[in-house]
C-alpha cells in the first residue's frame, strides 16, 4: 500500500516535470510573445517603442532562453508561487480560483445528468437488445454522438435565443448572468441556471451517447460470461441477473471512465465555454494561449496534469473497491 503510493508519487512527479517542461518549451517557441500579440498585432497604432519593449521583456523574463525560464518557473512553483498573468495583471492562482466555480457548474451538472441517464439507458438497451425500440434508440444515440457540439450549440442558440425570443421558452444566447451583483441571490441563482441550460445540454448529449453505448457494450460482454448462466440457473430473474450480476461487473471498466472524466469536471470544455462565452477554465485556457500568457498557460497545464494524475489514482482506488481481485500492492 505505502509502496504503491510512493511509486505513484514518484511517477506522478516525473510525469508533471516532463509535461510542464514540454508545454513551457512549446509555448515559448510559438510565434509571438505576450507583448507582440497583445499590443503590436491586435492594434498596430499602439506599437510600443523598442526601449519600453526591452524593459517589459526583462520584467517578464522573456529575454532568457526557455530552459532558464522553465527552471525559474519550477523554482517559483516549489515556493508555492504560480506567478502573475501577463495579460490580466492578476495572480494566476486567483485567476484559476475564480474560474473553477463556473466550469464546475457546467461540467458537474452535465456529468451527473450523463450518469443518471446513461446507466438506465444502457441497462434498458442491453435488456432489449436487438428489439426494434432498442435499435431505434441506439441509432438516435449514434447520430447524436457523431453530431459536432459546435453545430448543435448553434442550432440550440438559434432555436431558443432567436426563434423563441419573447416566449416563455426563451433562453439566453450566452454569458453566465445578466443580473447585477447586488440583485437578490435567489433571482441570481435562477438567472445563472437559465444561462446554464444550453451549455449543459450541449456538454451532456455527447457524453450521454458515448457513455450509454459504453455501458451497453460492457453489459453485453458481461452477460455472455459463465457466471451469468449460473445466476440464471439459480433462479434469478432477468432484472436481477442484469443489474445485480452483470452491471456490478461492468463497474470495473466504468470506474476508469469516471477517473478519466475528473480533469474535465473541473477543467471545463474549451469549445462550449467559448461558444457560450462562459467564464470558465476552458475559456481561460483558450484565451491564455491566444494571448501567449505563459504564466497562465503553465498554471492551467499544471492543474490539468495534476487532475489527470489524481483521476488515475482515484480510478485505481475505486478499482479495489469494485473488483475484489485487485489490490493496491
Amino acid at each position, binding site marked *: 500500500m505505502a509502496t504503491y503510493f510512493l511509486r505513484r508519487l514518484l511517477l506522478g512527479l516525473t510525469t508533471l516535470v516532463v509535461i510542464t517542461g514540454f508545454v513551457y518549451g512549446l509555448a515559448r517557441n510559438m510565434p509571438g510573445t505576450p507583448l507582440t500579440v497583445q499590443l503590436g498585432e491586435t492594434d498596430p497604432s499602439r506599437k510600443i517603442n523598442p526601449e519600453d519593449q526591452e524593459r517589459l521583456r526583462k520584467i517578464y523574463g522573456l529575454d532568457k532562453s526557455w530552459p532558464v525560464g522553465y527552471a525559474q518557473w519550477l523554482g517559483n512553483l516549489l515556493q508555492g508561487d504560480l506567478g502573475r498573468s501577463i495579460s490580466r495583471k492578476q495572480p494566476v492562482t486567483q485567476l484559476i480560483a475564480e474560474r473553477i466555480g463556473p466550469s464546475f457548474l457546467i461540467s458537474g451538472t452535465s456529468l451527473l445528468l450523463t450518469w443518471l441517464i446513461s446507466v438506465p439507458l444502457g441497462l434498458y438497451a442491453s435488456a432489449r437488445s436487438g428489439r426494434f425500440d432498442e435499435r431505434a434508440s441506439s441509432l438516435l444515440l449514434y447520430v447524436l454522438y457523431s453530431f459536432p457540439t459546435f453545430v448543435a450549440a448553434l442550432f440550440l442558440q438559434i432555436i431558443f435565443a432567436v426563434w423563441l425570443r419573447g416566449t416563455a421558452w426563451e433562453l439566453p444566447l450566452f454569458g453566465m448572468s445578466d443580473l447585477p451583483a447586488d440583485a437578490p441571490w435567489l433571482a441570481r441563482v435562477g438567472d445563472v441556471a437559465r444561462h446554464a441550460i444550453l451549455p449543459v445540454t450541449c456538454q451532456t448529449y455527447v457524453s450521454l451517447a458515448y457513455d450509454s453505448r459504453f455501458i451497453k457494450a460492457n453489459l453485453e460482454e458481461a452477460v455472455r460470461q*459463465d*457466471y451469468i448462466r*449460473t445466476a*440464471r*440457473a*439459480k*433462479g434469478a430473474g432477468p432484472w436481477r441477473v442484469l443489474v445485480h450480476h452483470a452491471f456490478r461487473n461492468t463497474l470495473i471498466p466504468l470506474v476508469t471512465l469516471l477517473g478519466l472524466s475528473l480533469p474535465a469536471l473541473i477543467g471545463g470544455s474549451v469549445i462550449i465555454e467559448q461558444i457560450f462565452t462562459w467564464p470558465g477554465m476552458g475559456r481561460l485556457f483558450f484565451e491564455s494561449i491566444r494571448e501567449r500568457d505563459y504564466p497562465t498557460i503553465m498554471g492551467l497545464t499544471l492543474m490539468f496534469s495534476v487532475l489527470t494524475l489524481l483521476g488515475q489514482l482515484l480510478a485505481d482506488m475505486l478499482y479495489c473497491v*469494485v*473488483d475484489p*481481485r485487485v489490490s493496491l500492492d
Partner: protein
Amino acid sequence: MIERPPHPRLSPPPRHAPLLAIKNLVTAFHTPAGRIPAVDGVSLSIERGRTLGIVGESGCGKSVTAMSVLRLVASPGRIEAGEILFSSGGTTLDLATLPEPAMRSVRGGRIGMIFQEPMTSLNPVFTVGDQIAEAVLLHRRVSREAARARALEMLQLVRLADPRQRLDEYPHQLSGGMRQRVMIAMALACDPELVIADEPTTALDVTIQAQILELLSELRARLGTAIVLITHDLGVVAETCDDVAVMYAGRVVEQAPAAELFARPRHPYTIGLLAARPSPGMKHSGPLCTIPGMVPLPQHFPAGCRFHPRCAYARLPGAESGSGRVVPLPAGELPCNAAVPPLHEVAPGHWVRCFHAESLGPPRSAQEIAAGGLFS
C-alpha cells in the same frame, strides 16, 4: 399401476414414476447459416434418487439437452417440440412450456445445476457465502442471517476446508476443485430433487476429479437427490451411475441400467463405445478399437438412423455401410437409411433405438468386444 411392497430405503424407490421424463425433445439454433437441430428427438427418463449418466461424443447434444431442461438454452436456440415432464410434489410440470415465473422457481429450487467450468462459473465480485445465500434467498422466505447460516452449512456439507473463513472469500481465492465444491453447495442449497452436472470434473486435475465424483455420490446417498451426470468418460459412468443414456447425433440411442448396459449393450454405437474403452483388465498396448468415421454435425445429420454411415450392422441397399460390407436386404425390410428406428424396450428398462437390436446376434459382453474387436 402396480403397487409394490415398500422397499427398504437402501434400494431406489419404485420405477413407475420417473422424476423427469423427456419425450421427443427438439432444440434447434436458428443461425444466419440455417437451422441447427442440436437436439432432435431426445427421449430419456430419470428415476427419483438415482444417478443417470449421459454419455456420447463431443457435440452430440448433451449440454443442449441439459440446458433445455432448465430452459437456459442461449438464443438463437429454441425448444421447438417435445415434453419435459417433471414430477415433483405430487404434480407433473411440463418444463418445455411452463411459464417463465414458475420456471424460475424450478431453477435452483427444485433442479440444481453444476457446470463444467468452475473457474468462470462463479461471479468474481461477490463472496462465496453471498452467492450461496443468494440461491437460498431466491427460493426461501428466510432472513439474510438464516441464508448465510445455510450457506455455511452447505460448505460444511461439501467438505470445504475452513468453511467459516471461506464464506467471506472471493472465488479467485479458491482453487478449481474448491470452486466446484462451492458450485455443488450452491446447487444443493435449496434441497433440489434433481441436480444436473454437466461434465463437472472435466476441467479439473485427475485426483480432484475423483474427489468431486466421490462427493457427488456421497451426497446423493445422503440427500436422496437424483443426479444427471453428463460425461465423456465411460469409466466414470461405470463407477458412479445407476442408469446410462447413450446419445448420438442429437438423439438418445440407448438407455438402460448401468450394469445391464455394460453387460449387454444392444445398440451398435454403444457396442463401439464400449469397445473403444480401455478395459481395466486389458494391457494398454495395442491400438484401441475405435469407431470409424466422424461424428456428423447437426447441419448434416444423415437420414434414417443417424448412425448408419458408421454402422457395421447397417442394412442398406447396396454397399453403403461403414465397413463396406454388403448385407443383403431381405424382401420387405426397410433399409436403415430410410426411416428413423423407434426407441423401444428390448428388456425391462432397456431401451434401444435400432431396427436390428434383437437380431444382432447374441449380445456380447464388453470384455469380449474389447478383446475381439468389433469393427476390425
